[in-house]
């Protein structure tokens, strides 16, 4: 177990009083359930309450749903984008993705009026990470990017810069600002050195001695820290101070040198009056190029996994994260994505987004998805169909079977036999199809007629899903043939149902009884051979019964058997004569 680096924050649950009731708890995917047990300390025993303690309140904010949905699209796009992109085109693609994420954050900021500060901080941090890590700006462009970054996020534009541009020696300043591609870093440095020396000369010569204002400008231009610090109130933050300093003293600062300037800037600016806030710590970690530290600090400071999950994924695509294995196995990117997606699954609506995130977690994504998807409440068939489609697309057969079974059982309880059958067909669940067929047959035996003929008459190839279902279909066909007076076909079918063992043994008596009217017809229907078969079936049926059962059989049963025997015998007699006569003549 890793050591805690900070005291965990204490959360008070209103209404829960451990001094009066003993409490127990259980972790959920994104929340804790707190429950009052029966062990009551006060002596009374009121009803127990359950508290649901959620950390992710953000999920329930309406506008953040926009953030989650739009970023989901960007995330999927990033995962699907070609891996063949190499070198420059890959980098520019990744920078574009980063910009897309940031524009989504800004779009949300425009929509929301409260909580803007959190979104604004997120965008600030992301922007810095984009400059330092994704784009990995080199010395030269680095400062320009940092200037843009500060300008974008700080309201007060650097007045000094504006003044500088309008003061003397405009040509020299133009040179400074003109960073076109033809200039190499050394050329630029040389030019800047030259300009810097000239400024220094002016200061030493006392050119500006008469005007203290202009003198201080010159000092600032030379990067004199004290002069800049004097104007502290114009700069809102230490990183604004940092960039200003760099602008005037080290415009060609290299990325790796940033950390020293950053640390000293923060110290100088804050001057030991106030301790750094979480945002400051995060930015400092970024300047120090401690990517893991940035992610860790963000995870602690921000209440939602959205930011760290997406940023880490992007940085992982930039191949900047070493496979820093956490002690329980998965790597940082996957861990954060799993946490984020699990949070989505605890939301009644956003669970659909979570599916795609789990898909892109190679180690544990599938297992997490399997566990989560079974717990989505299925209140309409349409929702169940969507969940099923997700499972089928990922070959999650267990889950398909279990969901179909739940829906089929629900349908069966509501007496929707057709729906129940439709779910069994989807899951290819032969056992359930048998259950449904038995229900139909039971209904038939009780009522003497079939319900839902539109279903049974139109089973089609799904009839073959289970033997019982086949029997049901064929039995209904027998009734239909009989109704259409196609007696010999009906007879053949009836016999086949018994001899081919399609019919369950319990049903044989019914089938034989159905044969009676056919046997009693004026014209002979069953051939001799068929009659022998029928007799055999009857004997098999009665022989199977023990003596005790025969004793318990009521009169109706014995009479039925008697009648059958009589009818069969009579039919046999007639058919022998008939067949014998034909042969003869």
């Amino acid at each position: 177990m890793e050591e805690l680096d900070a005291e965990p924050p204490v959360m008070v649950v209103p209404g829960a009083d451990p001094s009066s009731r003993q409490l127990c708890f259980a972790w959920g995917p994104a929340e804790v359930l707190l429950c009052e047990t029966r062990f009551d300390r006060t002596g009374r025993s009121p009803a127990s309450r359950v508290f649901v303690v959620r950390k992710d309140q953000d999920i329930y904010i309406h506008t953040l749903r926009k953030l989650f949905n739009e970023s989901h699209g960007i995330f999927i796009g990033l995962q699907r984008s070609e891996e063949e992109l190499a070198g420059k085109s890959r980098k520019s693609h990744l920078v574009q993705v980063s910009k897309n994420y940031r524009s989504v954050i800004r779009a949300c900021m425009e929509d929301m009026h409260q909580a803007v500060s959190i979104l604004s901080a997120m965008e600030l941090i992301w922007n810095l990470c984009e400059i330092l890590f994704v784009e990995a700006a080199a010395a030269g462009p680095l400062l320009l990017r940092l200037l843009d970054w500060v300008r974008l996020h700080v309201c007060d534009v650097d007045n000094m810069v504006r003044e500088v541009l309008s003061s003397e020696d405009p040509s020299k300043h133009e040179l400074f600002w003109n960073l076109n591609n033809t200039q190499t870093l050394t050329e630029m440095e040389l030019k800047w050195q030259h300009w810097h020396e000239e400024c220094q000369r002016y200061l030493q010569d006392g050119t500006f001695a008469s005007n203290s204002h202009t003198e201080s400008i010159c000092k600032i231009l030379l990067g004199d820290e004290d002069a800049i610090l004097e104007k502290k109130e114009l700069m809102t933050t230490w990183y604004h101070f940092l960039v200003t300093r760099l602008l005037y003293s080290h415009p060609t600062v290299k990325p790796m040198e940033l950390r020293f300037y950053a640390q000293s800037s923060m110290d100088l600016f804050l001057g030991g009056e106030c301790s750094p806030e979480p945002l400051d710590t995060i930015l400092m970690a970024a300047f120090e190029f401690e990517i893991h530290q940035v992610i860790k600090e963000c995870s602690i400071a921000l209440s939602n996994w959205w930011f760290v999950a997406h940023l880490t994924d992007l940085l992982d695509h930039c191949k900047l994260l070493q496979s820093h294995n956490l002690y329980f196995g998965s790597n940082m990117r996957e861990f954060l994505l799993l946490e984020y997606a699990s949070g989505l699954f605890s939301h009644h609506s956003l669970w659909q987004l979570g599916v795609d995130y789990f898909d892109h977690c190679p180690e544990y994504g599938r297992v997490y998805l399997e566990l989560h998807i079974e717990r989505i409440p299925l209140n309409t068939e349409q929702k169940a169909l969507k969940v099923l489609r997700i499972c089928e697309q990922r070959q999650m057969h267990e889950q398909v079977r279990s969901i179909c079974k739940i829906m089929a059982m629900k349908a069966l309880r509501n007496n929707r036999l057709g729906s129940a059958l439709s779910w069994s067909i989807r899951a290819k669940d032969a056992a359930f199809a048998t259950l449904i067929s038995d229900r139909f047959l039971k209904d038939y035996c009780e009522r003497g007629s079939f319900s839902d003929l539109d279903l049974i008459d139109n089973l089609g190839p799904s009839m073959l899903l289970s033997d019982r279902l086949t029997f049901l279909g064929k039995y209904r066909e027998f009734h239909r043939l009989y109704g259409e007076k196609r007696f010999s076909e009906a007879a053949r079918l009836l016999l086949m149902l018994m001899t081919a063992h399609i019919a369950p043994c319990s049903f044989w008596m019914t089938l034989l009884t159905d044969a009676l009217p056919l046997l009693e017809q004026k014209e002979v229907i069953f051939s001799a051979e068929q009659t022998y078969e029928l007799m055999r079936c009857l004997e098999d049926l009665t022989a199977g019964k023990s003596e005790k059962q025969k004793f318990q059989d009521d009169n109706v049963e014995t009479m039925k058997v008697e009648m059958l025997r009589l009818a069969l015998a009579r039919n046999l007699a007639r058919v022998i004569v008939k067949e014998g006569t034909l042969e003869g003549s």
Partner: protein
Amino acid sequence: MEDVCARFVSQKISKTRWRPLPAAALQPPDLFATGSWDNEDNRISVWSVGDLGNAGLNGEYQGEPQLLCDIRHNGDVMDMQFLDQERIVVASSTGTVTVFRHHQNNQTLSANQQWEKAHYHVDQDTSCGGAACTGVICNKPEIVTVGEDGRINLFRVDQKDAVRTIDNADSSTLHAVTFLRTTEILTVNSIGQLKIWDLRQQRNEPSQIFSLAGDRVPLHCVDRHPNQQHIVATGGQDGMLSIWDIRQGTMPVSLLNAHEAEMWEVHFHPSNPDHLFTCSEDGSLWHWDTSTDISEKPSFLHQGGRSTAYFSHNTINQSVVSAWLSNDPTKDRMEITNLVPNQTLSVNSLDILGPCLVYGTDAEAIYVNRQLFA
């Protein structure tokens, strides 16, 4: 694609419908309604996409759909249809059917009339036993609804009780309903059957049953050709588009392998029925265009393989065999285009009227294209 306007609306959209235009109207539709699902608090919303004087040089417009008003809806919105210019009939997952009125003067919505428990299960365990109402179709003043309970209801607006109810019309779930003629309806169910019901007759049996050959794949949506009433299109759970000729046979005339997952809606273009639109759980929306193979059309319209919409309307009626019923649609030039550029989550619903298309997705976004045939 540049003419598609997207807007994220923070709710999963289950239905989108254009408000119908008055008969003699020439301008395109400018108002549509949406319904949401899977929220603790579902809403019916009315949006406007008027150009509001922002038309550019080519007549294109700027601006996203603007929310005019919305109202809370109990349960998922399973189906929705405009009864007339002001009233919308909505089917709920709780089994209730509600008529909402859109008040134009102050831009509000109110519930005008409600039939609770229009659809229900008889279940000993649960006391409520409501069953989702899955489909609703209107032909003012009549409203027909179908549901998971296999029941068909015929309501008349402003009448409290149902005019007619067919209990246990189907042993499986009825997924969709549409009018075939003013007195006949078509339903599709979850065991792959298309049924015609004659509402004039008192017996509770369908007058005709059609089914797919082969596996009884559930059918989810149905639409009838606007001019040739014997042509019916259905979409199935396997994404297959089936075209039926109900004058003959009991099986579909053509089966077109379309989407990779459930097809949720199928629509013939109401004024230009050589165009068909389908949307699916796989996140795509397809535009099926059979207008290119009509030989009577003058050749200049064949340029680029696309045809312009409006004036071919009359020549199509005269063609002897509709392109939809031809035996080999792959041989005749049928153009199929996916209108969704980056598909992610399901497109649940679409509607088309004139040159305007609107569709809604599970990614909580609405998309409007007002230059469909440009």
